[in-house]
């Protein structure tokens, strides 16, 4: 009899747990069902991870665009940015729900391909933004910037800041970093072709490590006392170099620019160490991605060579490999840095 009671109590306890779980589930369903709609145009953003300021900014841009063309905005995604399996789950779910389009920043170039393929089989257009999958997996990639544009923007910034003459050096990431090397080659060629008074005296590597980049900056200033400027085409490098310069005698004398994020660079822009630096505007990226998805969903564009209008950003044409290019990098300076939080 004792055991009997125990088992009954056990059943009751589990049933209690069950009812709690199910009520949690049930009460949520009231809030959720309105959003899913009846095919009336829900656009699902799947960033690399949720709670990431960069994607919060970009997806806010997407939400704005979706509001403009009268769709519904939804954002789902995994908790960490190295979880392609989590993204697969969300892509599968969105496929089941028959969303109008998916806008994905891929955590892995290959791992999402099957799930995206199943979505596309169900006539759901898939746009990648920020981070692409393999080109044959998705419909269109909305690219934040191309190498030539990134190189050009940094050359223009440094040339402007040092008066188009003097010695400059690069503070890069790793010596074999593909992106950085491509940009540095393009920048060097641009200096030789159009800025004859600027000489590139050195390229040093901080391996995208804060302390190494900091030390490399210090060494650079000692070896080249006449240095007029530093370009660091990596967010870790430019922040570390700015931290060094901000406390050294060279502050304001040696100009620093490159690719950085507003949150990392804010104090150095405000204290005058850095005049301006470049990156793309994530809000514009999300905005363009949403319009691209809409153009695909309505059949306005299908692929390479087709054109569409992306709200305030103007007209875009789908380029080779089905890539839409956002445009030139965005320049952050003391006047606009307060507008950004990522």
């Amino acid at each position, binding site marked *: 009899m004792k055991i009997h009671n125990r088992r009954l109590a056990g059943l009751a306890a589990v049933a209690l747990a069950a009812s709690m779980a199910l009520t949690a*589930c049930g009460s949520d369903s009231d809030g959720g069902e309105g959003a899913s709609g009846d095919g009336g145009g829900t656009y699902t953003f799947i960033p690399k991870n949720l709670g990431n300021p960069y994607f919060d900014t970009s997806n806010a841009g997407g939400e704005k665009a979706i509001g403009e063309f009268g769709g519904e905005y939804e954002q789902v995604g995994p908790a960490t940015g190295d979880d392609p399996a989590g993204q697969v789950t969300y892509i599968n779910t969105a496929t089941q729900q028959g969303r109008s389009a998916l806008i994905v920043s891929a955590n892995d170039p290959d791992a999402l391909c099957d799930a995206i393929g199943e979505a596309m089989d169900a006539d759901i257009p898939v746009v990648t933004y920020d981070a692409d999958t393999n080109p044959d997996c998705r419909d269109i990639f909305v690219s934040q910037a191309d190498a030539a544009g990134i190189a050009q923007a940094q050359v223009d910034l440094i040339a402007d800041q040092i008066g188009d003459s003097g010695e400059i050096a690069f503070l890069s990431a790793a010596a074999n970093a593909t992106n950085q090397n491509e940009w540095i080659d393009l920048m060097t060629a641009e200096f030789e072709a159009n800025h004859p008074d600027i000489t590139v005296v050195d390229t040093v590597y901080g391996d995208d490590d804060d302390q190494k980049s900091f030390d490399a900056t210090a060494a650079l200033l000692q070896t080249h006392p006449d240095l007029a400027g530093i370009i660091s085409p990596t967010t870790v490098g430019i922040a570390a170099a700015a931290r060094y310069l901000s406390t050294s005698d060279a502050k304001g004398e040696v100009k620093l620019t490159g690719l950085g994020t507003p949150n990392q660079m804010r104090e150095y822009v405000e204290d005058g160490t850095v005049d301006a630096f470049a990156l793309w505007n994530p809000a514009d990226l999300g905005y363009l991605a949403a319009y691209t998805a809409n153009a695909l969903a309505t059949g306005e564009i299908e692929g390479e060579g087709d054109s569409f209008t992306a709200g305030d950003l103007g007209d875009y044409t789908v380029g080779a490999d089905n890539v839409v290019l956002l445009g030139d990098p965005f320049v952050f300076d003391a006047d606009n840095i307060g507008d950004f939080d990522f």
Partner: protein
Amino acid sequence: MSTVSPEATPGSPETPSVERTYAAYSRPFWQRVVLSREFAVIALLVAAIVFSRSQVEYFDGPQTMYYLFRDSASVLLLALPMTAIIITGEIDLSVASIVGLTSVSFGMLHDDVGLSATIAALLAIGVGVVCGAFNGFLIAYVGLPSIAVTIGTLALFRGIGAGLLGTESRTDFPEGWTDWAKDRIVEGQPYPMVLIPFVVLAIAFALLIHFSSFGRGIFEIGQNDEAAHFTGVDVARTKAILFVLSGAVAGFVGIYLTLVSGVARAENATGLELSVIAAVLLGGVSIFGGRGALHGVLAGVLLIGVIQRAMLLNGQTINVINIVIGVLLVLSVMSTSLLAASRRVLAASRGARSSGGPSRSAGKRLLS
């Protein structure tokens, strides 16, 4: 073990071959089946499915159960050996890392070394077996605590995988193999192919755990491994075999996950060990060992899967889903302790009323 047959107690002075004068079980069969924790989990699973089908939009769609099975397959498979290991009172935290390492091995053996997919798959399962044997040797024969050993190998196996492949991945697998991982057994039905090996393994493990003397040894070790040793159970060998089985199944899951996602990478299945252990505990297996049943565990895995999928379709974020599953798990573990406490209170009050009762009746039984 509530039933110890007379043959299993050698050496006792009066080995009477007389009939027992008390019932083998205190309750009839149907009560033992229905009023069990396993059955409660199954009932909960059915309730969750019925509720979701009627209340959650798209849940009754054709893809839901297919995705549910496909996504839960890894946990279902890994839960089989994990159930046996936890019943012995041990734990294997390294299963997901073995999955990652075998995924890397399979990818590299096929793409870099150029072996055929069949041989690469067999060698990858072999890697899983070696990993499991390494765990098993340290735990069973060196006598180290399994939680410490497998925390170490959790990092070690994942580290080897990451060292071999770095941040790269391998994606070139035979079309037939990757299609197999996604095919359905019968077109139009929600049952993916992976359920076939799963059912075979589930039957094998059910026989092993519940219907073999090896399985009775598993439960005995969980109750008291010294007592098990003295009743003739080879404790070390049993534990070692279970860890090898765990490694082998993890190897198979590594290949399955590689094929279903089409990518061999070192990060595959990161954190999966926690899902497996959570499902096993939810399914009614005691973390202290000695108690549990496979059907409860499988219902536990599916219950978590159904709740996840229903909430996903409802537009919940993964954090909310994790909160719900976490609460469910804590409640289910708490229910055991709460019951134990209430039983003590009950026993204490009854003991105060009729002290000496049990010993008198025991004496009567001996006399009769």
